[in-house]
């Protein structure tokens, strides 16, 4: 059983705190859950809401139908009531005549007697009561969430009051299906943790929604994790700082959203030409220009693929969910070091701001591989050459000061093996070929083929990349339930495009359906460019909102299968 709660209100009403406390309390109760946020780009007013889906089955994304609508203001009711399930309920501070089940909790009045600022905790109590979930877990969350003793005690009081005033109208799902140790976190936190586990010592960025969460999480761990966080004056500086620190010998990362990636573009080429390892997280939002700052999109794919002028090896990989974001980030740092190239790590607002429970990270299999030259690899009279020609194009890498009596020269002009500027035609050609060989090696040894989900024999193949994974898995299951033979191919590495898995599945009998959060079917275009395969059907969404599994299922049945 899965239940869906929507909590709506104005910006500034503390929605984020409410969702965070409630989500964590449900998590601690042992449920699976998925919490996603829908924010306007403003600090006060407007309409914001959070969706919390929880239950005893696997949950991979948001859903449309609402079981419990929690209204912090009246507008929430008018906006969402039409999505209320038949036996759904509304929780509000006065009776709502339009719906059958109305839970009345005068939260403001209750809070005013204790601490008016903590009004939302009243709702948390009443929501848990609505499902008959006891308060123990919520109490421990409140104790962890706030610092001051008096604030904690006020919130605990209000949690109880909310519980007392509320009423139980749903049967709660049984929290029994979760196996093993789990953690509850959002995509930005998972990316930040992957970076920390990957041993970064430097993170430079400029705040830009929806990527800022990565920087703020790492900034909070600077001392514990031995990281310098530099809030640069803009993205140009941020990426060049990261390149400087990486050239200087330490692991670095930067993060931004599309507009920032546009500013960073020239320097991505600098990392490419100087062969400086660099990982940049691009947490997409709808562009171009300022676009929709707090909403979601997969519109930067071809822009990222075509980063910077000229030609150089580049890896683009996308995280499919919160768990994957952790491991992808870790892997991206290793691959950047191994192949000495820039890696763009694609995420988006949907993944970044949504929280879910995932299996505790398995740290024992993670090995940081810097791939630096060892002192004993140098001959006694050998002069170090930063861009030494090798069979696979990967030159032994040293950083300044690493090798005794050796200097390291990196150049953004075309250069010879030692890093000195050259213009000779043959030298240029050899250097271009050397850099290109690195990518050949990467494709051979490290490129990740897409993962396939579905039955062996299929009529339809859904293809998607990155964070649409959750909704697509749900849609594919729904199709199978309706006896529609559909499989799903989930890409993480998108550039260079891995083609083997796709070419194997995409035979003439199978109809391909591209599902993407953009308006130009960019991934389908990339597939055609790289394989000649034409993806005939497109399910596109570009209103700034994430897909829901049910929505993909419905659109496929309406638009593809007639």
């Amino acid at each position: 059983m899965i239940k869906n709660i929507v909590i709506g209100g104005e910006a500034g009403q503390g929605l984020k705190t409410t969702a965070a406390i409630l989500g964590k309390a449900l998590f601690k109760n042992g449920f699976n859950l998925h919490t996603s946020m829908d924010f306007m780009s403003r600090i006060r007013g407007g309409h914001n809401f959070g969706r919390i889906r929880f239950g005893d089955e696997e949950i991979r994304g948001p859903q449309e139908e609402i079981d419990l609508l929690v209204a912090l203001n009246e507008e929430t009711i008018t906006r969402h009531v039409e999505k209320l399930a038949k036996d759904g309920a509304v929780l509000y501070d006065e009776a709502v005549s339009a719906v059958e089940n109305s839970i009345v909790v005068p939260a403001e009045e209750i809070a005013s007697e204790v601490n008016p600022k903590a009004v939302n905790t009243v709702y948390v109590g009443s929501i848990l009561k609505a499902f008959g979930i006891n308060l123990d877990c919520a109490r421990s969350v409140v104790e962890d969430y706030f610092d001051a003793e008096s604030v904690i005690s006020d919130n605990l009081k209000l949690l109880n009051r909310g519980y007392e005033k509320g009423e139980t109208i749903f049967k709660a799902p049984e929290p029994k299906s979760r196996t093993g140790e789990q953690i509850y976190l959002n995509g930005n936190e998972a990316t930040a943790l992957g970076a920390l586990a990957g041993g970064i010592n430097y993170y430079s960025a400029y705040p830009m929604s929806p990527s800022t969460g990565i920087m703020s999480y790492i900034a909070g761990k600077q001392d514990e994790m031995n990281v310098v966080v530099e809030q640069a004056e803009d993205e140009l500086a941020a990426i060049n700082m990261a390149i400087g620190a990486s050239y200087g010998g330490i692991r670095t990362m930067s993060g931004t959203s599309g507009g920032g990636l546009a500013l960073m573009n020239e320097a991505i080429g600098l990392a490419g030409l100087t062969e400086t390892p660099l990982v940049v997280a691009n947490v997409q939002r709808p562009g171009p220009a300022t676009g929709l700052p707090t909403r979601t999109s997969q519109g930067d794919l071809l822009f990222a693929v075509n980063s910077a002028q000229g030609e150089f090896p580049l890896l683009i990989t996308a995280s499919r969910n919160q768990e994957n974001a952790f491991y992808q980030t870790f892997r991206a740092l290793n691959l950047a070091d191994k192949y000495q190239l820039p890696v763009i790590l694609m995420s988006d607002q949907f993944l970044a701001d949504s929280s879910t429970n995932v299996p505790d990270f398995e740290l024992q299999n993670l090995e940081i591989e810097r791939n630096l030259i060892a002192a004993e690899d140098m001959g006694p009279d050998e002069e170090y050459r930063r861009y030494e020609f090798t069979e696979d194009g990967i030159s032994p890498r040293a950083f300044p000061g690493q090798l005794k009596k050796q200097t390291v020269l990196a150049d953004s002009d075309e250069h010879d093996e030692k890093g000195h500027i050259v213009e000779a035609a043959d030298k240029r050609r050899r250097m271009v070929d050397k850099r290109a060989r690195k990518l050949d090696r990467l494709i051979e040894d490290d490129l990740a083929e897409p993962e396939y989900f579905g039955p062996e024999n299929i009529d339809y193949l859904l293809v998607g990349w990155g964070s649409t994974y959750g909704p697509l898995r749900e849609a594919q299951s729904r199709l199978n339930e309706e006896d529609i033979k559909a499989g799903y191919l989930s890409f993480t590495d998108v550039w260079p495009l891995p083609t083997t898995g796709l070419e194997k599945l995409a035979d003439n009998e199978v109809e391909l359906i591209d599902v993407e959060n953009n308006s130009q079917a960019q991934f389908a275009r990339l597939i055609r460019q790289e394989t000649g395969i034409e993806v005939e059907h497109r399910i596109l969404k570009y209103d700034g909102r994430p897909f829901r599994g049910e929505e993909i299922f419905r659109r496929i049945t309406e638009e593809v299968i007639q």
Partner: protein
Amino acid sequence: MSENRGSKNKYSPVDYETNSSANLCPGCGHALITRALRQAVSELNLPPEKLNVVAGIGCSGKTVAEIKANGIHTLHGCAAPVAMGSQVANPDQEHILISGDGDSWAIGSGKMIALLRTNLDLLYICENNGTYGLTRGQLSPTTKIDSPTRWGMVSDIPPVDGIGIAMVTGATYVARGFSARQELLVEQIKGGILHDGLAYLEVFSPCRTFNDHEGSHHSYKYCQRHAADFPKISVNDIEADYPSDSELEHEFTYEEDGRQFGLEFDNLDEMPEYDPTDLNLALKTWEDYWTEQIIPLGLLYIDESQKAHHERFYSEEDDYIATLEPEETRPSREDFSIILDQFR
């Protein structure tokens, strides 16, 4: 200055030469700055592997090819952030940024302000020739109003005052040099390297090909004619250059690889009104000269009391990240598991 100067040095300027060329024009001021730089680092006895030269784009940036050192040639206007990253990775090295007037004060002006605010421990050499040499002689942000280009183009907006901006924005060592005054320049470079903070050294460096003509305010002749002496410094190895009973008082002393260096002013007695540690006075005096089109050469301002940027991250006991074994730089699995507790 003692005659046995430099006798303890293991390095001579030749040790910093490369067999690569920046392909500068004959008589280029930039080449003379490179020469002074080699002289300065040899007098400080700095091994090439201890130097890190971050270069911008333009004729100035190309000089990195002629300096045997660690180095990275960056993007136009972006040398400052690259230097910031590499300096924080390893403050043990001596970081020198070489840029030009366009790279610093046109395309790089935003980066410049941000850098100056940080007091990064770095010597910033701005090779100012008042023109865009590599693109064949256009107006630069430092081109003076009455100074036509070789092609007759005249700037009708006032030039950027790099020295003034550096002083008000946070540089803690601000000096003006001239490529044709080698001795002065060598001392200014040495002082800037030893200084613990951001040293901004703007060097008047005439472009023989595009900006050395009659009427130019950036020609050798113009600068010779308009130069005025300002506080001159010398930077010397205390043990090697002075007899042990010397009573000379050093304004500032520095330690570099076990050697003590002293910075002293050579001519302050000739300018009793001036105090290079007084920011307001330095600014006021500079602005007066600026208006009168006089080119003061010397160390205009110095403040050794400010924290350098990396001292905000590193304590005195800390080893710099790039000097640690990789294992020491990353969290243990146990430590990492503790931060995951927050999510459990």
